[in-house]
């Protein structure tokens, strides 16, 4: 079984873009850095609008929908620069990465025209409505129903772990439009819910890191117009599985703990001990390799290839590494009580915040266990 991650070199245009993004970041210091590089934690609508104005959201989409018709590589450059800098990107992140591409691929023309320009301008934000209280990894077991009633669907059920549903405008919700049969994957559909206006009740759930990012979203006879169904009714399963492939290989799958690395290098200073050097080098060797693998996958996406297994491999490696990084860092970090207050503050804040977020790294976007199953299938084991 040859697992091919081809050598891909970014073009010279990417250098110019990269410097442009760095200049932008330098000009917007008041928005960043956050103490961590986690793509979920910084919701900053003003920053997202500024990115939209630069053309850095929906970059790969057709211009007629507000996109920039740029390559997947250009998008990768922008996203990795933002994450590495600790920029607050969560407002537009899901819409840019996932909801927009889904609408482009499966949505109606009217839906594309209605939603994509707002996403690209950094003004319209989306959440993912997949998990339910009794549905986690076993996604086909969703029980939220959408029953046809004239020109509308009546939705009943509960979605959970819906990141930023309390802040975002829309949610693309996986629902049963037909009763479950032996074929569990049949009868599912995706439907766009207007979180501000349709009457769904959104209740934030506090997480262990002290944040309120995810939510429970309750649908009690919520009526949604029929034209909000994404693609064909009943095609939901094929759509969500293709959507998940988009979300698994990007730089956010290995950069969540990047700021811990930066603060480790800072606190170790220019004359690190040999243990500290080894720790820094070990972390860097992972970053360099993961990043190249992620670029390889961007190259495959660019060629329209199926990347399900490769994306799962990047996420598996990347998420495990995101958890390993703080462990390596703490094993060599100097005794903080002996350091200056400023050095202590930066390292400790970054480390503690990332540590507290770390359980989510191997859960979101497909658990480690699900990903290993995807890889095993690719290896012909199941």
């Amino acid at each position, binding site marked *: 079984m040859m697992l091919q991650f081809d*050598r891909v070199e970014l*073009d010279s245009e990417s250098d110019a873009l990269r410097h442009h993004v760095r200049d932008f970041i330098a000009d917007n210091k008041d928005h960043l850095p956050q103490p961590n590089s986690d793509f979920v934690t910084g919701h900053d609508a003003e920053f997202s609008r500024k990115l939209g104005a630069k053309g850095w959201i929906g970059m790969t989409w057709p211009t007629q929908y507000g996109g920039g018709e740029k390559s997947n590589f250009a998008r990768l450059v922008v996203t990795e620069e933002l994450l590495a800098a600790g920029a607050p990107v969560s407002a537009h992140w899901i819409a840019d990465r996932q909801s927009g591409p889904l609408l482009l691929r499966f949505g109606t023309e009217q839906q594309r025209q209605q939603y994509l320009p707002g996403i690209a301008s950094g003004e319209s934000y989306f959440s993912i409505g997949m998990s339910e209280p009794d549905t986690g990894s076993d996604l086909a077991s969703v029980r939220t129903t959408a029953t046809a009633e004239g020109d509308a669907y009546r939705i009943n059920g509960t979605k959970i772990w819906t990141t930023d549903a309390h802040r975002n405008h829309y949610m693309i919700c996986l629902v049963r439009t037909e009763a479950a049969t032996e074929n569990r994957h049949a009868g599912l559909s995706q439907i766009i819910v207007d979180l501000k206006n349709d009457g769904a009740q959104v209740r934030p759930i506090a997480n262990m890191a002290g944040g309120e990012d995810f939510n429970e979203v309750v649908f009690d006879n919520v009526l949604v117009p029929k034209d909000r169904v994404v693609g064909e009714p009943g095609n939901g399963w094929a759509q969500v599985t293709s959507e998940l492939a988009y979300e698994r290989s990007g730089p956010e799958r290995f950069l969540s703990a990047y700021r811990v690395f930066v603060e480790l290098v800072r606190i170790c200073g220019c004359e690190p001990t040999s243990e500290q050097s*080894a720790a*820094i080098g070990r972390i860097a060797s992972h970053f*360099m390799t993961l990043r*190249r693998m992620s670029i390889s996958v961007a190259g495959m996406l660019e060629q329209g290839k199926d990347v399900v297994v490769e994306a799962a491999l990047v996420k*598996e490696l990347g998420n495990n590494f995101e958890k390993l990084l703080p462990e390596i860092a703490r094993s060599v970090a100097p005794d903080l009580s002996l350091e200056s207050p400023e050095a202590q503050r930066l390292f400790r804040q970054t480390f503690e915040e990332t540590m507290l977020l770390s359980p989510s790294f191997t859960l979101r976007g497909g658990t480690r266990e699900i990903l290993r199953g995807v890889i095993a299938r*690719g*290896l012909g*084991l199941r």
Partner: protein
Amino acid sequence: MNTQQLIEDTATKIFSDHCDKALLDRCEQGDFADDLWQQIIANGFHQLGDAASGTTLADIFAFLKVCGRFAVPLPMAEMLLGHSWAAGQLAPCEGLVSIGRQRGDQIIHVPWGRRAQRIFGVEEHSLAVCVADAPVCVQEGNNMAAEARDTVELGSATQQITLSDDPFAQMALARTNLMAGTLQSTLDLGLQFAAEREQFGRSISKFQAIQHSLAVVAAEVAAAQRAADAGVDALGTDRFIAEVAASKARVGEAVGIVAEQVHQVHGAMGFTHEHRLHHFTRRLWAWRDEWGNETYWQRVLGARIAGLGADQAWGFIATRG
């Protein structure tokens, strides 16, 4: 088909036909694989990296990956790199060429030093290498894969040449590419064994625990391939040492995980001498420690990044290639 693909395909064909378990067992007892050696020469692989043959230094490393896949029991890295180092600087050597680490008047850890007619002695942090054209083998030894690793004295005919890419790092990169190939075969053996072995009335590949172990192995093997290629791509650039550092450190880290997991999948069978798995895993364990282990190279890379400073670290990592 490009040159590298042709090299890989031809080498795969030769090794499939001529490098089997029986040969590996024989060489472990001290035999030199003369027949295989003749095949390699007959196909011109000894000239890889020679401008005259239309190949490059990078092709040597691609070939070494294939050698690693078959656990080829010959000092191919030393032969080929030695040949490329001599080009234009030294008279050609018709006999076996090898490379070891120089320590005073000796060169140590020399693959097949007992047979070599020219041996290069490499020191860390030096572009100069010592050439011994009449080396005297003073002690025969082995690494943990029972590959010949001998100690030689420089002898009478010595000289020095200077290389453009760091020789110590070139050797580390050679081991890295050998390991990348061997890791690939180790995964393949694990997949094959899991499919064939039945317990509880079904193939063990159907058990989730086994599937997850092999998924972890596959991820490490994939990372190792990409890391090994990155080191090769840095040949001739000012990032060469840093990229080799990342490459050997990352691949070495994969070795520990992969060898452990694949042995576990193989159960007691893989612990026997009769099974061929150990020819691969023992080489992996030996090679990760040769020419700088993970810690050595992590320190090299870490010191470089610490020197740049925290806010320059990303600029160092975010390369184009």
